[in-house]
Every structure is written in structure tokens, then in C-alpha cells.
């Protein structure tokens, strides 16, 4: 009796354990790090096909796996040749790209002009539905690959011509002086023939032309391992033997692991931990100004926001420094420019008085513009709690400094936020964020203030200047024209610049040569102190 009973109990417990599937799964030994390798904290990337991701986490990995035609000089923000030898044009419309000869992919396949053309065609091909599709819209033939309706009749951009193994001729639809700098974007990386046999498999195990190659499968939400490429002959050979990207769901946890010495490099220390990290890590804490900006967009299509004076009054009533100090521990930088500081053509005080906190002048301007009637709705998404924090501060400042009586919050689910803005449903100031693609004023100005913008702002002079700048004979000639356009956007103030994000980087005592720039983590340059 007793025996059967306890056996029954044991069975029942075993059933529960089995239903819990306690068996199976590997548990790597962990701990023991081989001498010349290090780990980087990362958030799970979405894709690893260069044409199909704009996630900064994917970029960190892809930057180690791929050499794009050009790289960006972090000091000047201008292009440096990488996979390309030269990018030239006489009319800014037809560009000739010469690639460096004798380079190979990680699988031994040679890198040719065709490898670039193949990758670009695949990315621009509408039915592939890759994220970076729109980066190719300036190349001739883009419209044929992305028809308004129906299937495209071709899968090749007519503007791409492979002249020989090392020469690619690119014809744009219009002159575009910024073209060389756009080639630093990951979508312009080459793909080997092997990729096109199975694009899905390639997304899981990309083969690139960079200093590192993938080592084993991408273990989702756990890790991605890369090792030094045996066949790499480019300009930035890796110093370390291998790098492990450890994937974290939360930056806070990653930071705790950095403190515990369980991960060597973190590229995104949470702002809340910045003061502590500064104390704890000393020189091993580095803050760099990135290209990401926050703005307060105004719905100019709503006639209550039609007055530029009113819009400027709102800008002058916001104490940017106080908000940055309170919400972001002073790690972000208040902005008086539409461009981030690292962009060529950035002027520290392009905005002048209109972006300086001055409650008295703001109130005077506000009254002169006739004030504001009705409810002032502030729009933002719930993607991060800090958005609500700074919007609350903005609300209080508008109440106190301008006397706006009725301010309400419109917190929108993150997945719905951009469709709201696209549909012009926002009837009040809204959070607008921009992550830079390449350091050109054009990337900011044309993308956010250009045709079909979210503010519903239209200014012909502005558009003309952008057009002139795009077709300027050289990059340097384009800058003053973009600056003039920026002046107009600031004078009209359809969107108010707020602050520039900073990336907070921290690393362990094992590493040296860490040189993280806004464009690259430069993992190839990192050496590991052994022993």
C-alpha cells in the first residue's frame, strides 16, 4: 500500500516535471574565456542581411562582418575609401565607383563590382520588402522595381552598370552631391553569389567581406559569435581572434554584467546609470555625441499652429537644459540647430534667440501671435518612459511660461505612433526622433522638412535650396546651400530642435584600443590584454 502510494506520487511529480520539459537543451560550460577574445553587449538584431536592417544593433554586428564602399571619417564627417578605391563624378548624376581589386568574401568568393550590383538590386527590388529599399530611390530604375501596383517587370536597376570587375557605373535620376557619403550606409555593402541561393539562410548566417566572419549559428536572444576572417586583406584587419556579441533584453542588465566583469564592452549604458558609470569606470567610460536628435514637431496643417511667432514662442518657452538634466542626467545636449553636431555644416547656434530659453520674450511673442485656444494635446509614444517624463516637463513649462490653460497628453502605443503621424492625426506638438543614416545635412533636412513632411509645412524656397544643394558640384559647395535651407526651417520653425543624444560606452580593464565612433564600433581595432 505504502509503496504504491509513493510510487504514484513519484509518477505524478515526474509527469509535472516532464510537462515542464526539464530535460534537453545544452548548457555550455561558460566562464573560461580564451585569451584573445572579448564580448560585446548587444540587443537582439532584427536581420543580418545588410539590405534589410536599419537597427543599430544589427549595424554593430554587420560593421564587423562587412566593408562598405566608403567609411566615414569621424573627425570631419567626410567619406574615406574602404572597399572602394574612388567614387567620382563630373556632373553629380553619373558616378563611377572603382573598387579595390583582389578582395574576397569570408567564403573565398572574390568581391567584384557585380557583388555590389547584386546586393543593391536585391535591396531595391520591391517584392523582397527589405527595410533599406528606399535608400536606392535616387538611382535610375528604382520606380520600375517598385511600381505603384502590380509586380515589377524587372529585378535590376537600370542605373547600375557593371563596367568590369572593379568598376561600377551608377546613374542617378537627378544630380546628388551627397552620393559618396551615402555609400557608407550598410545597405551598400556587397553580397556574394552564395547568398542568392537561399536568402533566408543568408539572413541567419551572412557572409561578408569584412574583418570578421560568423563563427557558428546566430543563437537568437543569446549570442552571435564572430572570429577573425582568414581571407581578409582589407584596411582594418582584426586585432582580436574572436568577438562574442552577448544578447541582452535590457540595457540595465547588460550594465550590471559589465560591472560584474561578465561582458567586456557596452555601447549603450542607460542614461540613468551614467553618473555611476563615470565614477566607477573612469577613463573606461566614454560619452560621444551621436547623430540622433529629438524634436518637437508642430502640426502646421492645423490652423491654430499656422503662426510662426506662436511656434517660436513654444520653442522659447522650453527650458531644454533643465529637462535634459532632470530626465537624462545631463547626458544629452540641448540643441540650437536642426543638425547634430557631427554633421558637416553644423552651426552651434544656427537657431539663435528662437531656441534660447526666455520665458518673458516667449510670452510676449505668444501674446502677439494671438495665443492659443482650445486643448493643447502633446503626442508621444509609450516606447520609453522618458518620453512621458520630458513631455510632462514641456507641458508644465508651456503652462507656466505661456499661460496655456488646458494641456493634455496623448500617449500612443509605439506600434501605432508612426501611423498616427503619417495620417496627420496629431493635433498638437509631438515627439519626433531622427536617427541619422549618414552625416549629411540633406539626410536631416530633406527627410524631415522635405516634401510630404509630417508637419504639413510647405516652403518652396526651402525645397529649391535643397534641390540646388543636392546638385551642387562638390560636397563643400553644397554645405552653404543646406545652411540657407536650415535657416528658413528655423525662421519658420515648423519643428523645434530639442536635444542631441549621447551614446555612453563602457568597457572592462581587459580591453585597449576601444574607439567607438558614431559610425562604427571599430571592433577590429580593439586589443585584449592577455593573461
Amino acid at each position, binding site marked *: 500500500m505504502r509503496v504504491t502510494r509513493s510510487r*504514484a*506520487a513519484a509518477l*505524478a511529480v515526474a*509527469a*509535472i516535471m516532464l*510537462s*515542464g*520539459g*526539464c530535460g*534537453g*537543451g*545544452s*548548457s*555550455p560550460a*561558460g*566562464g573560461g574565456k580564451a585569451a584573445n577574445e572579448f564580448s560585446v553587449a548587444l540587443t537582439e538584431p*532584427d*536581420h543580418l542581411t545588410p539590405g534589410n536592417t*536599419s*537597427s543599430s544593433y544589427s549595424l554593430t554586428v554587420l560593421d564587423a562582418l562587412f566593408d562598405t564602399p566608403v567609411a566615414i571619417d569621424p573627425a570631419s564627417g567626410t567619406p574615406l575609401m574602404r572597399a572602394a578605391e574612388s567614387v567620382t563624378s563630373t556632373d553629380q548624376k553619373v558616378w563611377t565607383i572603382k573598387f579595390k581589386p583582389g578582395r574576397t568574401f569570408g567564403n573565398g568568393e572574390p568581391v567584384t563590382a557585380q557583388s555590389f550590383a547584386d546586393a543593391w538590386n536585391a535591396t531595391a527590388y*520591391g*517584392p*523582397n*520588402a*527589405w*527595410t533599406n*529599399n*528606399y535608400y536606392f530611390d535616387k538611382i535610375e530604375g528604382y520606380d520600375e522595381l*517598385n*511600381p*505603384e501596383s502590380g509586380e515589377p517587370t524587372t529585378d535590376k536597376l537600370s542605373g547600375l552598370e557593371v563596367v568590369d570587375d572593379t568598376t561600377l557605373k551608377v546613374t542617378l535620376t537627378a544630380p546628388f552631391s551627397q552620393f559618396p557619403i551615402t555609400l557608407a550606409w550598410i545597405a551598400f555593402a556587397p553580397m556574394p553569389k552564395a547568398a542568392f541561393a537561399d536568402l533566408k539562410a543568408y*539572413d541567419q548566417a551572412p557572409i561578408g567581406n569584412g574583418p570578421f566572419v560568423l563563427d557558428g549559428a546566430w*543563437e*537568437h*536572444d*543569446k549570442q552571435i559569435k564572430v572570429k577573425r576572417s582568414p581571407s581578409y586583406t582589407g584596411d582594418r584587419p582584426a586585432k582580436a581572434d574572436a568577438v562574442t556579441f552577448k*544578447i*541582452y*533584453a*535590457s540595457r540595465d*542588465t*547588460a550594465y*550590471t*554584467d559589465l*560591472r*560584474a566583469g*561578465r561582458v567586456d564592452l557596452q555601447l549603450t549604458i542607460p542614461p540613468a546609470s551614467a553618473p555611476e558609470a563615470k565614477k566607477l569606470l573612469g577613463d573606461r567610460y566614454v560619452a560621444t555625441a551621436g547623430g540622433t536628435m529629438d524634436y518637437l514637431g508642430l502640426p502646421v496643417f492645423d490652423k491654430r499652429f499656422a503662426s510662426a511667432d506662436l511656434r517660436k514662442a513654444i520653442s522659447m518657452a522650453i527650458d531644454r537644459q533643465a529637462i535634459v538634466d532632470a530626465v537624462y542626467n545631463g547626458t544629452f545636449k540641448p540643441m540650437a540647430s536642426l543638425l547634430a553636431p557631427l554633421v558637416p555644416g553644423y552651426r552651434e547656434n544656427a537657431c539663435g534667440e528662437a531656441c534660447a530659453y526666455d520665458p518673458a520674450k516667449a510670452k510676449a511673442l505668444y501674446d502677439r501671435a494671438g495665443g492659443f485656444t482650445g486643448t493643447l494635446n502633446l503626442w508621444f509614444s509609450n516606447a520609453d518612459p522618458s518620453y512621458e517624463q520630458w513631455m510632462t516637463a514641456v507641458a508644465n513649462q508651456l503652462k507656466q511660461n505661456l499661460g496655456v490653460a488646458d494641456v493634455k497628453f496623448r500617449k500612443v*502605443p*509605439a*506600434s*501605432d*505612433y*508612426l*501611423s498616427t503621424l*503619417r495620417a496627420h492625426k496629431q493635433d498638437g506638438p509631438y515627439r*519626433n*526622433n*531622427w*536617427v541619422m543614416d549618414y552625416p549629411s545635412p540633406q539626410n536631416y533636412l530633406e*527627410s524631415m522638412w522635405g516634401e510630404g513632411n509630417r508637419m504639413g509645412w510647405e516652403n518652396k524656397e526651402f525645397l529649391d535650396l535643397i534641390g540646388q544643394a543636392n546638385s551642387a558640384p562638390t560636397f563643400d559647395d553644397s554645405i552653404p546651400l543646406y545652411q540657407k535651407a536650415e535657416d528658413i526651417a528655423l525662421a519658420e520653425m515648423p519643428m523645434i530642435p530639442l536635444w542631441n543624444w549621447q551614446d555612453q560606452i563602457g568597457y572592462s580593464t581587459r580591453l585597449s584600443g576601444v574607439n567607438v565612433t558614431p559610425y562604427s564600433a571599430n571592433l577590429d581595432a580593439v586589443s585584449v590584454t592577455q593573461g
Partner: protein
Amino acid sequence: MRYAAQRLVQAVPVFFATTFLIYAMVFALPGDPILALAGDKPVPEQVLAVMRARYHLDEPLLVQYGHYMLGVFRGDLGETFTGQPVSELLQDRWGVTARLALTAWVFELAVGVGLGVLAGLRRGGAADTAVLAGTTFVIAVPVFVVGYTAQIVLGLNLGLFPTAGTDEGWPGSYLLPGMVLGSFGLAYVARLTRTSLVENLRADYVRTATAKGLARRRVVGLHALRNSLIPVVTYLGVDFGNLMAGAVVTEGIFNLPGIGQQVFQSIQLQEGPVVVGVVTLLVMIFILANLAVDLLYGVLDPRIRRARA
């Protein structure tokens, strides 16, 4: 056995109802998941259309659900927006959550019942007061506070446990998160055991057993405790499912790539197939855990077993 089979058959309509309900709920979430994927960047209409068609997002709810169920019967659970098959994803993550929940559950069971017996036997004593005060505290403090505090103090400062991740495998990597996850249930188990034991110790059959001259150890261990455990077993059974589902926060803090973390991310991304897959799985676990509880009743209380036969 027939009883067990009967219960399993009952699970079939539950399966259909839950999958449909979950699917409808994800469907009802506002916003366009494809547009949200692109972040702040512009997306050409053509790309949007292709993506919507790929995930059947351009079709009405019933058609979408039909596509999904057809796939399920062909053994295809669909894929995430990043193109990863859901079945593969569940396979990868399933073991992590199961190990975590089981660690928490064993901790809850062993320590909870132990503390409950200790408190119940010395009712009103120092141990009893300590257990009552301690469990009240644990129930009152939110799990993320317990989690972060344990991680910083025990993991980082004292170095007793790894701070995060699954590098050390089981049990090393799962002990601390398991204890954090199990702490809430532990408090309940301890209180339930205590109350139930205190009541049973005053019951007639215990007095009879004592009067017969049985040793105290036997009276408590064999007679009083076994009866006292019936409510505890019920709770533990249901709680196993809760632990699986409630691992969201703990998995986040300790960076364990389990299904809790996944379902949280997927709800944000409105990935219907993933949410339905995971939640259906959780429902199945609830059903199985409850079945196990019912079978255990029979072991603990012969009257229930005979009534069924």
C-alpha cells in the same frame, strides 16, 4: 487512466477557444505592426503591401485565423516578422523557461512547506511570527524590486551567483532567478501550509491519534501534514502555470531568453502567430498541471480516489 484521457479530451475545445480569443485580441490591438517595424524611416507602399500580404495582415480576422490554423495542422506555427519560424523559437526558449519555473517551483515547495510546518507547529512562537512577518514582506514587495536587489547584492556585490544570462547552465544560472521568481509563491505556500496545519492539529483524528499513543512525529508527519497539504498542492499545481507565465519580469532582469521574454516582445510587435503559439502552450501547461494536481489528490486523500473509481 480513463480519467486522465477524459481530461485531455476536454482540452481540445479549450485549445480552439484560446487560440481564437488570443488571435482576436492581438488582431484588435491598434496600429500597423509592419509600419512600426520600420521605425522612423519611410517605407515605400510596395514594401508595405508585400509585407502585409506575406503575413495575411490585409485580410479579415477569420481568414487570418484560418490561415494560421491550417498552418498549425500542417505542423507550421507561422513565423515572426523577422522571418524566424515560431516552432524553432519555441524550441529554443522553452527549455529556459521550464528550467526557471521548475527551479522556482522546487524552491517554493521545499522551503515554503518547510517554513509553513515550522510556523504551524510553533503557533504564536518566535518562528511563527518571523515567518508571518517575512512572508508579508515578500508578498508586499514587487518582484522587480526583489529581482534587482538580489541581482545587485547577491550577484554583483557578493558574487555568490552569476548576475545574468545562461552561460553557467542549470542549475548555476537558474538558482538566483528561480528564487526570485519563487519567492512570491513561497510566501503563499508557507502561509497556506501553516494555516491548514494549525487547523488540522486541532481536528478530532489528530487528538485520537495522539490518544492512541502515536509518536508526535508520526501524528504530524503522516496524518496532519498529509491532509494539510491538499490546499497547498492545489496552489502549487496552479502556480506552476503561473510561474511559466509570470517569468516575464524575472527573465527580463536576469536576461534569460525564455518564452516570457518572447511573449512580451511579441505583444509589443503585434506578432500574432508568436503570441498565440506561446499562450496556447501556456494554456496546455495549465491543463496538464491541473490534471497532475487532481491525480495527486487521490494520493493524498484515499476518499477522493475511491469516489472516482
